[in-house]
């Protein structure tokens, strides 16, 4: 019995060892625990390989823009975690927000920093006709489908509607001339063009669903812990990294929002990030709810393939504006160490400054910050940063 006792107690004596609860949490953060790719009932082509291949072509197609220079990949760079390293994305002009990385985006409940879209396909339509991003318009996109992708489009979505009688440039969000041309079109033509536009988004979405978060050193560490083994070799953490992880899941409260295998709770929080001085007032989630409900391309709209009952994100969305003032979607921390600057408009330049932000917990410019402030030792700060670096993708040569 004594031997048994000693055997049970000994491992717990290592100073930095993790408790059973902590081990459970560590395992819950591992990529191995990621739920299967959620279905998107609003897009019947979501898991259709030809649609995804078509979407991949569209993602890199610069002719999907007003000036022929901008594609999705202009800002979502394939070799840079599908983001652009800039504080604010730049297309035809500079936008007001930081370009978001796309790994694992198909697991997201709401899209954009403020969640103003409820599906990947509805999201994709937004930059296409934003004057600062692609600055395109709906009839131009439809004509481009007919001219360049007629056969590929037909194989996925069926025949294109008649388009030759329609103006070259028309759309509800473009220049005054484009808007006037759009209003002058027959309602049936507008609806047909909207259908092509929605399909373009559905192909792009099918492609984006294939962008998965890569396995990291942390995952190899967490999988070993999950199996009850001590991580070895590359998977072993340094003392500093272990301390950082312990802080992250413990005293530093990071887990309150950055939890689960994607390190996000898919919810919106005001964390007191400053408002940019040279950009319009940004209310975050508070403004997004009404816009999402009014979006003709949302899950309940005419172009969605989902029965209304399946639109759970939209149907059970919280309407309370006050608590959502300057609340933004919790970003995944996978790969974050390798892609400064940080926050929804690149307000914070480095990880050290991010930790400093969480330590100071400044007052929010509007609404109320949820942060309470954490006292870090010098070593604690270093440890957190060291831990966050273990979430960076490793070389593809790594198993």
């Amino acid at each position: 019995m004594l031997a048994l006792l000693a055997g049970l107690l000994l491992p717990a004596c290592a100073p930095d060892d993790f408790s059973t609860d902590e081990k459970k949490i560590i395992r819950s953060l591992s990529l191995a625990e990621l739920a299967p790719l959620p279905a998107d009932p609003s897009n019947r082509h979501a898991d259709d390989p030809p649609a995804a291949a078509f979407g991949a072509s569209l993602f890199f197609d610069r002719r999907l823009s007003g000036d022929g220079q901008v594609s999705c990949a202009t800002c979502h760079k394939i070799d840079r975690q599908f983001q652009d390293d800039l504080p604010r994305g730049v297309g035809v002009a500079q936008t007001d927000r930081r370009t978001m990385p796309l790994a694992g985006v198909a697991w997201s409940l709401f899209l954009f920093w403020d969640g103003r879209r409820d599906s990947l396909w509805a999201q994709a339509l937004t930059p296409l006709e934003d004057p600062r991003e692609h600055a395109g318009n709906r009839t131009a996109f439809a004509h481009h489908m007919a001219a360049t992708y007629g056969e590929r489009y037909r194989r996925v979505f069926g025949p294109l509607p008649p388009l030759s009688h329609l103006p070259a440039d028309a759309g509800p969000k473009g220049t005054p001339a484009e808007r006037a041309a759009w209003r002058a079109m027959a309602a049936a033509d507008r609806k047909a063009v909207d259908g092509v536009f929605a399909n373009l988004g559905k192909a792009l979405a099918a492609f984006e669903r294939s962008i998965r978060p890569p396995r990291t050193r942390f995952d190899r560490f967490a999988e070993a812990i999950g199996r009850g083994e001590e991580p070895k070799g590359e998977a072993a953490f340094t003392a500093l990294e272990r301390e950082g992880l312990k802080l992250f899941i413990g005293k530093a409260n990071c887990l309150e929002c950055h939890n689960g295998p994607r390190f996000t709770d898919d919810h919106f929080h005001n964390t007191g990030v400053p408002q940019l001085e040279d950009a319009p007032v940004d209310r975050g989630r508070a403004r997004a709810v009404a816009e999402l409900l009014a979006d003709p391309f949302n899950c309940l709209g005419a172009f969605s393939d989902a029965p209304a009952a399946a639109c759970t994100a939209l149907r059970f969305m919280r309407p309370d504006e006050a608590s959502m003032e300057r609340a933004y979607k919790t970003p995944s921390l996978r790969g974050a160490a390798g892609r400064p600057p940080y926050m929804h408009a690149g307000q914070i330049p480095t990880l050290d400054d991010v930790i400093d932000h969480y330590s100071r917990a400044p007052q929010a410019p509007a609404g109320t910050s949820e942060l309470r402030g954490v006292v870090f030792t010098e070593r604690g700060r270093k440890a957190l940063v060291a831990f966050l670096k273990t979430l960076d993708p490793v070389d593809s040569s790594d198993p």
Partner: protein
Amino acid sequence: MPAQSETGNSRLVKSLLGVVVAAIAVYAGWNLLAPPPPQVDVAYNTVSADGLYQLMFETDVEPIPVGQTHSWVLTLTTPDGAPVTDATIRVDGGMPAHGHGLPTAPQVSTNPGEGRYRIEGMRFNMGGHWEIRIAISAPPGDDAAVFNIEL
């Protein structure tokens, strides 16, 4: 023949008992050292604050998931077990320790009868202690109940 076999049986029973006693002792010793077993309750019960109702719920995903929108079926009865079929039910909740509410606004979607109510749009966005508050309005009177959930 019968006598012999009886002795044999009782000896077997005694030795088995010995093994069982030893096993219980080891198990008890082990239990003292091991962390408490995880909660295995899949059906939760409670009584409303003024004692007007008994509530029970089941979830369509088990165990109750974190980070996944799911549904509950709530069963509402009077204390003597009679189903309450025509209640108006409101659902709210949050994490008392963190001072935040639910990430969604769940609602009763269907009422399949026999005191059962389907609540859709339930979602928990982190592990830990959650409180789900159910406000009930029905002929026996207005009352409220709380479920404490450890995720």
